[in-house]
């Protein structure tokens, strides 16, 4: 919970990780990819305020204690949602797996949501594994990494028939939320691997599922926004937007927020720190303090008030995952919220 100016914010970190990317976990023969991957992530961290940067050694292999302190003790987070990323072609035990996350989750009941993942190229075995993970960890969400390498394949689309078979199975198992991450990938090389149109089709064909596009489809924000405006079950995952732009490029951050508020709306945006790329503390503090610069180029964008920030920082994700929110952290009923909005518009 974060408190500022008498307002209390229930915080759900809807996109974070507990990874091991140290040399001890690199697949022999694939070291350059394992190293290149984590160095690329580390470069993203450089976009945060300087005092929050970590040396690469810590960044590769931060500990359980680091995570608990950064996310919960210092970071105001009430519930954190693990989003596993396997990358087993590069990392021997996986980059961050459902099992590794669960090890932490089981020690701290109620603090984590344990999402799992699937890969439609894993055939029948993958479906068995998906069911086993849902049964064991109670997963209600999956993280899909469409660019993951798998047995010579360099990626897939959500519209592949195999992917639809998995989405059907996931729905049957009680999965509600599909977190999609696009790129980087090298397959198909001659196509745009960051293209989000497959999410558009899947969202139309699976109206009962929610599709949270992580990193708002970066670098395809414009395609993502235009798609999300038409699909009621498509959400914007804000990780990277806040972490990568708010401190480093405040002017562009304001514009991206403006576009997201305009096309997607504050009811369908969710905060995610992307820990361990970025610590949540500075992101939450900065976001609560943030407002549009006073310049004509921002005048057309919808305003974001305290209620909207509460939704984005936690209440929207809490709704997606049926998380219990203490009464004092709920929004006041709809009427005052509307008044608030009206006040902001006329100010």
């Amino acid at each position, binding site marked *: 919970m974060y408190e500022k100016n008498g307002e209390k914010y229930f915080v759900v970190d809807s996109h974070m990780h507990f990874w091991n990317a140290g040399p001890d976990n690199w697949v022999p023969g694939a070291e*350059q*990819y394992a190293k*290149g*991957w984590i*160095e*690329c992530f*580390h*470069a*993203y961290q*450089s*976009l945060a305020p300087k005092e929050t940067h970590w040396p690469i050694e810590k960044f590769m292999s931060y500990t359980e204690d680091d995570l608990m302190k950064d996310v919960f003790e210092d970071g105001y987070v009430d519930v954190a949602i693990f989003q596993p990323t396997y990358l087993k072609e590069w990392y021997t035990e996986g980059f961050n797996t459902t099992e590794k996350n669960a090890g932490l989750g089981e020690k701290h009941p109620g603090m984590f949501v344990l999402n799992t993942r699937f890969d439609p190229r894993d055939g029948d075995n993958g479906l068995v594994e998906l069911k086993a993970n849902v049964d064991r960890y109670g997963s209600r969400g999956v993280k899909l990494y469409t660019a993951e390498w798998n047995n010579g394949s*360099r990626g897939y689309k959500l519209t592949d028939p195999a992917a639809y078979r998995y989405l059907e199975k996931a729905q049957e198992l009680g999965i509600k939320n599909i977190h999609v991450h696009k*790129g*980087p*990938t*090298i*397959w*198909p*090389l*001659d*196509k*745009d*691997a*960051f293209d989000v149109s497959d999410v558009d089709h899947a969202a139309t064909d699976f109206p009962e599922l929610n599709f949270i596009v992580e990193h708002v489809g*970066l*670098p*395809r*924000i*414009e395609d993502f*926004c*235009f798609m999300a405006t038409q699909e009621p079950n498509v959400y914007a995952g804000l990780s990277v937007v806040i972490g*990568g*732009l708010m401190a*480093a*490029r405040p002017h*562009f951050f304001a*514009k*991206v927020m*403006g*576009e997201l508020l*305009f*096309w997607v709306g504050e009811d369908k945006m969710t905060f995610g720190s992307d820990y361990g790329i970025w610590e949540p503390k500075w992101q939450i503090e900065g976001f609560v303090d943030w407002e549009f610069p006073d310049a*004509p*180029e921002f005048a057309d964008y919808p305003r974001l008030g305290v209620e909207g920030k509460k939704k984005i920082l936690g209440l929207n994700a809490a709704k997606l995952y049926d998380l219990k929110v203490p009464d004092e952290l709920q929004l006041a009923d709809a009427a005052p919220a509307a008044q608030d909005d009206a006040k902001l518009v006329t100010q």
Partner: protein
Amino acid sequence: MTAAVAERSRVLTALDAVRDPELDEPITTLGFVSECIVSAAGDVRVRLRLPTYFCAPNFAFLMVADAYDVVSALPEVRSADVALEDHFASAEINAGVAARAGFAVSFAGEAVGELDELRRTFLSKAVLAGTDQVCRPLLAAGLDPAALATMTIGETPPSAQLERLCRRRAELGLRTDPSAPLLVDPGTGDPITGAAVSLHLGRARLAKVGIEANTGICRGMLRHRYGTTGAGEEEDE
């Protein structure tokens, strides 16, 4: 000025014409040219670098191939050695470009087509973003958005932004003559009129913001990866 120094400046000017297709900005000003050496005999060595090890290889290929083409086309250049460094697909890209093999051959089995369609997709985004750059100042100066629907290129006040927009439109094969409409669908070239104008301007603004955000992130990552200024790089804002 020695001949080699003069030639280096010609090579850098030629490289200014090579753009990152996604960011729609020259590779020189982005800092992607890490090295540009020209010998007295006219042998040119150019090295390119990107913000991350995993930057999309299709875009990388386009930039290396375009750089090779503009450098080797210069009359005083005897040989051109253009290569990408520190990228997971450097070997395939550099070999393919040096052999002028094309993209599909360079990545046999992993790509089936060339990159023309990809380039068109991003040129379309550049046209949309360019439309925003031209229209926004007009609207800020009080022009009625409805008036844009009937405005032609010839009626649009001249500006550097308009020239740039026309160059992008020409690359896409869209009309740029004075009687051509200012607002067109970049895919079809059809004029945008009536109620569609406001949505079109919204998408144009969105495309511009998308490019700006990507550029901001790429510049930050490149600066973290390399502490040095690229050849022909402009200081960032």
